């Protein structure tokens, strides 16, 4: 039964384990780690992981199975998962399938039994690193790891964005959401405030303005913000037009570049659900969900923005408001999914911005009840029920 497998990193490190998930002799990608204790399904289905292999530091993965409502996108974009221990048997009333079966259904390979702590410590030193794993022999895997480009300079957004616009939610506010790899949890939140139209990443500013939105949302997404120049142009025009704009994660980085600022790559990124972020104005601390390798350099935007949020671990930028415009953004994930709910006030802040730009004093919000959100893209492949 056990299929022995290896993980080989581009610097030659080798880890022994066993194959899990979809069968594949060689799977390659950029190896990153995530420290969340719960929420593996949301992480695995997050489009921001396109091109990456996700290492879970939590040893037991798959314990509570998977269900249809915790998907963060219509399918899975990561290249593989690395775990210490894949559950044989799930236990949770919400579950409709085993995680391993989901991986098989989506053709996502994995490797289990890995000393993930050793791997994490290694990545902490080398930074996110190309690697390959599978049942192939060591030299084949090494070769695959060496040719794997990683995520620098690759346009991953094009692979994950929607091909067609679609709309969900209803209400007085009209929001255009750029899909650079948008997470469903973000759409669940936005649709509480009004009608949300999700548009492909390459949609031009003119087309957006023609829809007469009350606000524009810039989504999260995978990879290097420098690889989406056309989105950067569109954002610049929209912000200059005074459009209320809110960006999250990649959206934050693209807004920075639209203002002429710089982004850079962090050594091993932030991937977890426990990062402290301080709101500069109040000093209050939010525990945040994070998933990014690239980062905004606030000094490159001197005078054009106000820094609103700071990461207390490494003091990198976590949020900004654009001076003289109606735009703000954060680097982390206020929508959670997975992660803490400490920062959900930012969605209210966006709604307030849209309402006041419209000359209104307030907004209404239809709070989510239950787990289902109508209008989300259907999951492309059913998982065994």
């Amino acid at each position, binding site marked *: 039964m056990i299929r022995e497998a290896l993980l080989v990193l581009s610097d030659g490190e080798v*880890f*022994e384990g066993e194959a899990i998930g979809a069968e594949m002799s060689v799977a390659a990608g950029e190896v990153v*780690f995530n*420290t*969340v*204790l*719960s*929420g593996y*399904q*949301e992480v695995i289905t997050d489009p921001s992981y396109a091109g990456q292999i996700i290492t879970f*530091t*939590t*040893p*037991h993965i798959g*314990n*509570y199975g998977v*269900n249809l409502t*915790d998907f963060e996108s219509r399918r899975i974009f990561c290249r593989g998962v690395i775990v*210490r*221990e894949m*559950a*044989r*048997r*799930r*236990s*949770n*009333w*919400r579950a409709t399938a085993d995680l391993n079966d989901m991986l098989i259904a989506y053709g996502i390979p994995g490797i289990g039994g890995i*000393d*993930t*702590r*050793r791997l*994490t*410590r290694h990545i*902490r030193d080398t930074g996110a690193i190309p690697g390959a794993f599978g049942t192939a022999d060591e030299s084949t895997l090494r070769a695959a790891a060496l040719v794997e480009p990683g995520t620098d300079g690759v346009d991953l957004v094009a692979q994950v964005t929607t091909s067609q616009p679609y709309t969900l939610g209803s209400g007085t506010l009209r929001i255009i959401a750029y899909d650079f790899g948008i997470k469903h949890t973000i759409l669940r939140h936005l649709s509480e405030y009004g009608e949300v139209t999700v548009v492909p990443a390459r949609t031009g500013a003119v087309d957006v303005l023609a829809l007469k939105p009350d606000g524009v949302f810039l989504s999260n997404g995978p990879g290097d913000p420098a690889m989406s120049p056309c989105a950067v142009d569109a954002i610049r025009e929209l912000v200059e037009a005074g459009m209320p704009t809110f960006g999250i994660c990649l959206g934050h980085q693209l807004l920075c570049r639209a203002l002429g600022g710089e982004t850079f790559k962090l050594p091993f990124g932030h991937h*977890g*659900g*426990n*990062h*402290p972020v*301080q709101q500069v104005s109040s*000093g*209050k*601390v939010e*525990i945040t969900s994070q998933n990014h390798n690239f980062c905004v350099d606030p000094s490159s935007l001197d005078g054009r923005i106000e820094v609103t949020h700071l990461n*207390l*671990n490494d003091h990198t930028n976590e949020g900004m408001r654009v001076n003289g415009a109606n735009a703000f953004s954060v680097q982390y994930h206020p929508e*959670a*999914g*997975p*992660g*803490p*709910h400490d920062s959900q006030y930012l969605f209210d802040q966006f709604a307030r911005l849209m309402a006041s730009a419209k000359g209104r004093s307030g907004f209404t919000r239809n709070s989510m009840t239950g*787990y289902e959100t109508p209008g989300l893209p259907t999951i492309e492949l059913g998982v065994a029920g």
Partner: protein
Amino acid sequence: MPKRTDIQSILIIGSGPIVIGQACEFDYSGTQACRVLKEEGYRVILANSNPATIMTDPDFADRTYIEPLTVEVLAKIIEREKPDAVLPTLGGQTGLNLAMELFHAGLVGVPGTPELIGANAESIETAENREKFKQAMIEIGLDVPPSGTAHNMEEAMEVVARIGLPIIIRPAYILGGRGTGMAATMEEFVKAAAHGLDASPVSEILIETSIAGWKEYELEVMRDRNDNCVIVCSIENFDPMGVHTGDSITVAPAQTLTDVEYQKMRDAAFACLRRVGVETGGSNVQFALNPENGHMVVIEMNPRVSRSSALASKATGFPIAKIAARLAVGYTLDEIPNDITKMTPASFEPSIDYVVTKIPRWAFEKLPGTSGILGTQMQSVGEAMAIGRTFPESFQKGLRSLENGRLGLNCDPAEKQYDALDDAELLRLCNVPTPERPFHLGEALRRGMSVDTINAATKVDVWFLDQMLMIVEERAHLATLGFSAMTKRDWKRAKRLGFSDPQLGYLFGVDELDVRKARLDVGVKATFKTVDTCAAEFAAQTPYHYSTYEDTDEVQPSDGKKVIILGSGPNRIGQGIEFDYCCVHASFALRDAGYETIMINCNPETVSTDYDTSSRLYFEPLTREDVLNVIEAENPIGIVVSLGGQTPLKLAGLLPQNLIVGTSPESIDRAEDRELWNVLCNQLNIPQPAGGTAVTVDEALAITDQIGFPVLVRPSYVLGGRGMRIVNDRDELVSAMSELIGFGALGKEGGLSAERPVLIDRFLEDATEVDVDALRDATGEVVIGGVMEHVEEAGVHSGDSACAIPPPTLQPWVIEVIEHYATSIAHALDVKGLINIQFAVRGNQVNVIEANPRASRTVPFVAKATGVPLAKIASRIMLGATLQQLREEGLLKPPVTGHTSVKEAVLPFNRFPAVDPALGPEMRSTGEVMGIDITFGLAFAKSQAASYSALPTDGSLFISLKDRDKPAGIIVAKRFRERGLKIIATKGTAAYLARFGFDVDRTLSKLSDNEGTSAVDLIASGEITFIVNTPSGSGGRSDGSHIRTAAVVHRVSCVTTVEAALAAAQGMAEAAATPMTVRSLQEFHGL
């Protein structure tokens, strides 16, 4: 927000004696808090009656009051010290309750009095009052189990009509869960309600919808003044609702919650804290979740640090108490650095990359009459925690950490006991929560019962059961492979599932060392990982490790002089906090002397397992295998085995002999081995009770033929008098022997074998027991640390009797003889370090009962009574220092005198109403308190108040004595009458007293006569305020046992020896004559 400068001095209320539900976790949190607040420059005043704690060392506070924890005493301390603030959240339930009483008395929390910091009166009230708490939760939209109160059957019927069945019943103001019940049918309900109403002294019951079988969770939360909230740890219970979390196997982090559910719970926990109004500090919120539909309800919250917060701190590396103390003085979480990473702030939520399992340890074997079934009241006396990368690994490590003779999840000799059970019986047992349940579950899985069948019967989560099944399947697989076919992969898989070498040895029929060798030969060796709060995301140099079987090891080799100190494992009756105190002191002293200290222990409650205590901490089971792993990783110059009680001592012989420091294992054996010991006493001409050793019934009878009855029968190599009893005749002897032979077959503690025979001694009647703690160094110098005279006669275990320094009644020359004997025994055993010797003094003859060349339970008490840090000195001696050197260094000082210190034991009977509280040679106390004052009487009175049995000032004395005690009874009755108490006696005692011209005020007939008012009635009505009842031999449940039980239930002081009664009378007389004063240890010690 920086720290507050408007307060300068803070009074911390400790938690008092160790009792079930409140153990050394509060020493751990209190010690941390004292340290931190002193570091911050505050003047720290500490009140705690427990001398065995680290926190009551004079170094940890500016003023340490080892005084009774009562409002009266605290008021005196407040008056004397005038603190600006009182911090009540670190002393458990005791601390909170006292804070509320002080508040109601207008002594704190109101203008002009010290401020309550950490939690205010209103929030304590909201959290602690179950009705108010439920109301508050409903207000903020959280669900609670529906409930109602009833005072009679009609009201009970109304409540059940409203909330439906099934229900649980919790009577108000009851002890030990008496009258608690569950009902699923109306018939059961009527019975249960009637029973509950009857059990409650105020005829009040809480009827609550039963959600037994739901999943139980706990979240550990912190909040600061700026309303920043973090979850430190989530904990999932293996045992579903219905078993108290303190009695449940618990696992961190939670394993079977989706993130959606977890975040909902997190939001609810924060909402709960905000509503209750916990402004700063740590709290614990308990939840239950319906496994069918995820319906979540709040069970309760504790607005203070708790047992769970200590566990969470050890499980994550996030020091909750330390941070709570900083928050209480005004800091916010982001201003406090994470202790472990140093670079990141404390305002984060730990991520952990391992699994932590906590398993409780009970003492039912010491409490005959208890059912041994777990329920909604906590009954365990200690716990072990284990860390592994996966649940199976950490679970099996946890099971072997318990030291119950089990090697892991079955796969050991003890599993044979299940062979006799048929499947139906086994499944039934699986459904009854008992300490044995995990092993029953393992056996059921081994027989092929499906996870679903077992889950349906027990409600234990299928994920946990499947993880156990992996262990069971692996065992079957390994059995088919066989020892010689094991490959590297096989060994690694087995070790990763937590199998111990002895388990594998049992499975393969080879010695554990052969297993070790075979796997090491193929390179399967333990690797050590680090607890770092962040799952390796950031670099951390935490000196906190656990073993697992992975690719790489994180222990940094160091070339300092390293000493391993073996801790004492889970708390149990007879081996508790005192030994942790000794280990911690050794670590402090050796660090000060330039050694690197390495602590190995598996008890999450303790100061020893604080990663700050030693240079490095290994959170590991105390077994040969696990200790050898650390030795190999660290390469120490020595191992200290004599400070952690019996646990490390038992290991001494199994470890490299050249590394054991201090008294040699041979000497330890000479004191423990009866034959060698007899030879030694004969050589030294020291009298001892006649006796011998036996392995069989016939041998035992041969001994009693020689020495006569009564005799004391006890197994060797046990602690706290386990299995020990006074035997009066041949029949009793035969049954006692058979029972011990039975233990041996099951691998239980106290079992019999050729190497561990039973000891049979002539029982010395009417003897005064004396304990001595002494130090000896390699040059042969001996220093007597303390001579303690026991209040109760020999025959009451020394751990259960009160004792005093200096001896209040012994003749000076008798004390000299004792010191002389102690010195020659220490020489003969070539002691290097501590020795404890017990004597029984009868008339002019001093008999030696036993000698233990190791630290004893009384070391911290002696240290606090005399100001001499015995454990520190002992640890230095073990590493070669001489007493003279230590004197020059200033560590060894002459003892301080001029006062009397009394230690009193605290017993757990209020939790176990079915157990006869009469004292005997088997120890049953869980903790101790100390009273210090200028005379014995005053110190004794304080010790009684501190042990929650304050001496009476009015009411009636009830006296009922066995014949032998009747003469002394005359004096007792006289003294109590002088104190203004009425005297009530049983017929026999009254008649005897009358013969000497003493007429009692009232005579009662025997309970069994069933006529008129009984003693039990007068105890219940409060008329009887003090009881002297000496048990008359063994036999069924006598009158006496009913009276003593009633005393426990109604919290009336009851002594079971005339000595204690006389001490009480003396205490009452002196206390009446002198107003009570309080004085700090620093003042007593002249610091």
